[in-house]
């Protein structure tokens, strides 16, 4: 039986800017999301790692599953957000159960 298709959005953002990104997603209609800690990595602005007591440069990973319309709204606002703040955002299609929740 075919299952409903929704968009899974994944964003990687500095801890210092997490709250504003979460607010942005909620404002666009994301019904739920999960934030997990990044451990280490690198990108165009250099490498990063979780270390000591320095939360400011830690990276957080935000996961949310939304419908296509909400995903468009999130991406439109994220364009502006990530023009200034370090991080990335991307999405792909996922199968879900209880599609009415997203």
């Amino acid at each position, binding site marked *: 039986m075919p299952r409903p298709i929704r968009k899974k959005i994944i964003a990687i953002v500095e801890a210092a*800017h997490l709250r*504003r990104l979460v607010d942005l997603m909620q404002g666009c209609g994301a019904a739920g999301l999960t934030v997990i800690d990044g451990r280490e990595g690198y990108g165009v602005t250099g490498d990063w790692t979780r270390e*000591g007591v*320095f939360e*400011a*440069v830690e990276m957080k990973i935000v996961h949310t599953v939304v419908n296509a319309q909400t995903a468009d709204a999130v991406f439109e606002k994220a364009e502006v957000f990530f023009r200034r*703040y370090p991080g990335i955002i991307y999405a792909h299609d996922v199968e879900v159960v209880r599609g009415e929740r997203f």
Partner: protein
Amino acid sequence: MSDAIGLALINLTTPAVLFFALGIFAGVARSDLSIPQAVAKGLALYLMLAIGFKGGAAVAEVGLSYTLLLAALAGVLLSFSLPVVAFALLRAFTKVDRATAAASAAHYGSISVVTFVAGSEFLTLTGLVWSGHMVAVLAIMETPAILTGLWLAGRASKGPDPEARPELIREVLLNGSVVLLIGAFLIGWASGPSGMARLDLFVNGLFQGFLCLFLLDMGLVAARRLNGARKLGWSGAAFGIVMPLIGAFAALPLAWLIGMTPGDAAALMILSGSASYIAVPAAMRIALPEADPSVYLTLSLAITFPFNLTIGIPLYAGVASAVLGG
């Protein structure tokens, strides 16, 4: 001269400094030694609680005087003005962009709690008595530099982000380290000698051990950050050593002017010569995301902090003692 060498030797052979050196060695040698991040954060909280509480309890014992007000004013003046000097030096002698120079400059007006903790232990060890109210001065000096840094950045084409303002204000005023330091200071003050008697083992007996563990972690982190020093070049690295000296020696005439004791003057020099690496980076990431954190974290953690811990602290103590002691 022999006094200065004697002080430096005393400092270099304290367990705390030796554990820091061990951390640097382990980091450079790529040992798998590591302190779990939650433990490091817990240790930082412990140090702030202990130093705040001890400062408050000391004030309860000897009482408040106008010297606290004068010391606070001196601290605020230094914190506001030192970033201007740091910014001018960075722009004149290094290639860092304006936002990064402003963010880095703010670090040098603000203070490092751990440098102060290590410094105050050294002062106690060498018999230089410092007043508990210097902890309040420490807390007061955290913030003005952030405002100067933002002002310096605001004069650039791209200043602080207006949308981030509420978050920035919350970070500046309610930063966890400021809340814990001031809170513990007030609790120590309110509970006085009887409170100290109850927490004596926690804030005094265990203090050296926890400081050693924290500095071991700081050594590991500083070693990781040493890679970033190459990016700074010689002039950037030299800034990380010259700026704390400028900060510390700017504090000396102020300390003399307001009649500080040699111990308090040394404490003020340690504060002025230190560079923040907890409160200011957090504020700068929010306000100036385009500033390069690898520059200011490398400067304050990998260059200035080790310099102060090994050479700066005994130097400031020796000078304060020589100039104001007699």
